[in-house]
């Protein structure tokens, strides 16, 4: 039997009094939360403890007595003994510390056994000079009972433990030195929940005086309270605006098919809906229920603020020195230039590119088809050119909603400006895909096999003569035309991949800003004890025959775990395919990142 007493460091030099705390049920351990000083009226103490218990929901009780006698105070033994009868408990701790000596004594009055007569005495000496660092303790144990009982003092820093959130240890074997996690968790919860106990200031004029952790900045907390009060009407206003916005969004005209499809494809709209959802989370006037929700709200708020700040920076750059006009003036020639380059590429493909043997007729047909497309595109751009500056000017305003909006808008504009590349890619891919599928099924026919749909395997089959003939004819034609199509497909796929890569980088950065838990990371860096992953115990004294004397320190959570745990969930713009699947899709000619997702068809 080992009795663990969690003792706050701030109470080391407290005046004599009563120890208030909690016995942790099921584990032989006690958490000391505060010391109530003499003189007191026992009835008031009882009332106070009950009141605190009601407020905090923690089973508080008077654990025992604490004595640190000043000079001239002697002969308290009988008084202390009597106290245990006033506050009837199963176990009564008498912890005392001598001012002159380096002593720290703990008597345990066990009234459950032997009618309260059994007594055990543990003497602990503690170094007077440095309380926090390793002290020297000498202990004598008098075994008056059959079973041997030891006392372990675990010193903890009350403020850190109160504020920290204990995270489950991931795939780690619990240290044999540490207590079982459930007990530790209970202890953390006890300290965290008994915050009402710590409101009693030592300068307060009340019937009771006590020692525990005390906040030093009352003024700051007043400001925080005022802010909290002020945030409620703000939240109400926000939610009103949001409901108006939602109502606008839900007008029937927006849910018609083409508009809805378009809005699901434009990343600006996606970002807008996402931001709306965030704001709805933020604007609920109720306080956050738990730690997770609080952190979520704080993360969303901080990343929103950072986002808007970055957007403002962007705006201040854009609207200074006519940057918009400059951009617009470079955009049209750039698009023209891209079109010219594409035309040259097509001319090259229509010749004998890289000495490849292409089918001349098909090559000419495909080349002319794509050239006509580019021609259409250039006309479109030139038609648009007077309006581009205006579009940029008004689009730039969206940055005041945040940098993410500007980035999403940029992504959409890139998508619209490179629509011809997407079209080329789709045509090339469709053609190539048809050829590949045709070739694969004709190759089975060539070998006298067929695909059995029911059994999902290749069976042998005897074909008719005409089927064989036509199949072979088509097979030969497709085989000889494949290189031409494949080359067109390859070139346009590369172009498409470049665009996809650019858009992917934009989307990733938007997603990063949206989901990165800035608040949690800041908390981890500035107040690393707030997010704890566990505790470590430093042995202050471990001599044979003496009680163990431990100092509990908090292990901060790893940064990667912080990011992983507190990432705001977002629409995933991450590629769903693995690399191998992507390469396979590219090889077979399936569309990658299509605008319209095909519904999975049943076999």
């Amino acid at each position: 039997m080992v009795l663990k007493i969690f003792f706050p460091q701030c109470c080391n030099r407290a005046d004599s009094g009563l120890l208030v705390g909690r016995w942790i049920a099921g584990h032989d351990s006690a958490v000391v939360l505060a010391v109530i000083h003499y003189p007191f009226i026992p009835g008031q103490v009882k009332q106070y403890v009950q009141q605190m218990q009601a407020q905090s929901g923690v089973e508080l009780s008077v654990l025992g007595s604490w004595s640190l006698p000043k000079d001239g105070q002697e002969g308290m033994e009988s008084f202390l003994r009597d106290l245990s009868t006033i506050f009837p408990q199963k176990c009564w701790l008498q912890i005392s510390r001598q001012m002159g000596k380096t002593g720290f004594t703990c008597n345990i009055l066990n009234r459950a056994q032997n009618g309260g007569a059994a007594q055990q005495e543990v003497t602990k000496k503690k170094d007077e000079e440095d309380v926090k660092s390793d002290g020297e303790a000498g202990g004598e144990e008098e075994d008056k009972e059959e079973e041997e009982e030891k006392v372990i003092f675990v010193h903890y820093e009350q403020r850190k433990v109160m504020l920290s959130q204990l995270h489950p240890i991931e795939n780690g074997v619990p240290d044999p030195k540490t207590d079982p996690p459930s007990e530790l968790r209970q202890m953390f919860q006890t300290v965290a929940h008994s915050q009402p106990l710590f409101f009693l200031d030592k300068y307060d004029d009340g019937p009771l005086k006590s020692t525990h952790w005390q906040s030093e900045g009352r003024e700051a907390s007043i400001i925080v309270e005022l802010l909290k009060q002020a945030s409620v009407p703000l939240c109400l206003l926000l939610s009103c605006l949001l409901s108006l916005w939602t109502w606008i969004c839900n007008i029937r005209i927006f849910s018609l098919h083409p508009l809805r499809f378009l809005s699901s494809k434009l990343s600006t709209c996606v970002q807008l809906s996402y931001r709306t959802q965030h704001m709805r989370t933020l604007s609920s006037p109720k306080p956050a229920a738990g730690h997770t929700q609080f952190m979520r709200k704080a993360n969303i708020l901080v990343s929103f603020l950072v986002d808007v700040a970055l957007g403002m920076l962007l705006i201040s750059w854009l609207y200074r020195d006519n940057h918009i006009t400059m951009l617009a003036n470079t955009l049209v020639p750039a698009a023209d230039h891209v079109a010219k380059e594409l035309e040259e590429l097509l001319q090259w493909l229509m010749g004998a590119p890289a000495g490849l043997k292409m089918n001349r007729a098909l090559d000419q047909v495909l080349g002319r088809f794509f050239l006509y497309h580019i021609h259409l595109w250039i006309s479109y751009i030139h038609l648009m050119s007077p309006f581009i500056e205006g579009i940029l000017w008004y689009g730039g305003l969206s940055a005041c909603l945040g940098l993410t909006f500007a980035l999403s808008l940029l992504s959409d504009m890139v998508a619209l400006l490179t629509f011809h590349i997407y079209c080329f890619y789709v045509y090339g891919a469709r053609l190539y895909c048809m050829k590949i599928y045709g070739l694969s099924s004709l190759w089975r026919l060539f070998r006298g096999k067929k695909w059995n749909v029911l059994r999902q395997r290749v069976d042998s089959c005897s074909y008719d003569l005409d089927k064989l003939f036509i199949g072979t004819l088509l097979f030969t034609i497709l085989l000889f035309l494949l290189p031409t199509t494949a080359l067109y497909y390859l070139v346009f796929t590369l172009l498409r991949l470049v665009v996809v890569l650019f858009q992917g980088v934009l989307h990733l950065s938007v997603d990063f800003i949206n989901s990165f838990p800035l608040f949690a990371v800041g908390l981890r860096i500035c107040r690393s004890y707030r997010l704890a992953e566990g505790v470590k115990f430093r042995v202050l004294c471990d001599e044979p025959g003496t009680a163990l004397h431990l100092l509990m320190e908090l292990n901060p959570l790893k940064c990667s775990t912080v990011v992983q745990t507190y990432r705001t969930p977002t629409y995933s713009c991450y590629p769903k395919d693995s690399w191998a699947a992507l390469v396979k899709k590219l090889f077979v000619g399936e569309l990658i990142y299509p605008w319209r997702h095909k519904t999975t068809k049943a076999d």
Partner: protein
Amino acid sequence: MGPDSAPGPAVPWQKVLWERQPFPDNYVDQRFLEELRRNEGLRQYRYWAVVNEAGFVGQQLSCVAIFITLWLYMEQGLLSPETLLSTSLVCALLGYGLYQVLTSSGESGCEPRTRLADLQSATIFLSFTFGFSPVLKTLTESVSTDTVYAMSAMMLLAHLVSFPYAQPSPPGSLSLNAALFASVCLASRLPGALHTFAMLSCALLVFALWPCLLQRLRENAPSQFTGVCVGMCVGGVGGLGSQWLGGAVLLALALGSVTLLCPLLLVWLQRHKDNIHGPWDEAEIHEDLSRFLH
């Protein structure tokens, strides 16, 4: 305890597993080899019968030779596509009539094809070939001639290797497809679209329809079959000889070895055949190949 350890003579060994016996599991007694049989169901080949059968291989070889000869003629302009087409038409009609006669004289097979189905197939062949011939003509334009020749040679070889000589009547998919692929490759080298069309029709005749007719001939008129085979061989050698003498010599050598030498070898090696049969399962050796990989 091994299989040789003599058990007590009191208990005779029984070849049963359901009784407990004082023998090890792998024990057998002297009667074991009594059930050994050698060369069971052996067919004794006779030389001329084998030569007669091998004639099919020889004539298929010369069919390929005849096709190549026709292609050579076409490429050099010595044979006009119209001539080839009309000849093919006449041959096809004659062959169809012969086929019908042979079918009606022999046992009527299960569910014979109707005339309408035959006509439909013929229409499909002709229309598709005619429609695709301009495409086919430009198909291998940019591919070098050597590549086309190499591919055709490979495919014709694949045709010969995978031809189902024993049962050629529904032509084997792989062999027919390989032959058609080769003929498309070769036909695409010809100067005009009509040439391509004529060549493909000819290929259909030679590779798809002729083996069916020949098979019917072999079943119903064996004496004429031999004569036709010899005629085909002579025709193939002669035809190739008119264009390419070395090729004709090679073909003649190949034909001789396939139809005369190989059967001789088969009959001679028959004496050394030694198959054993008995009431046992054959041991299958599953070598653990991964041992050799390290």
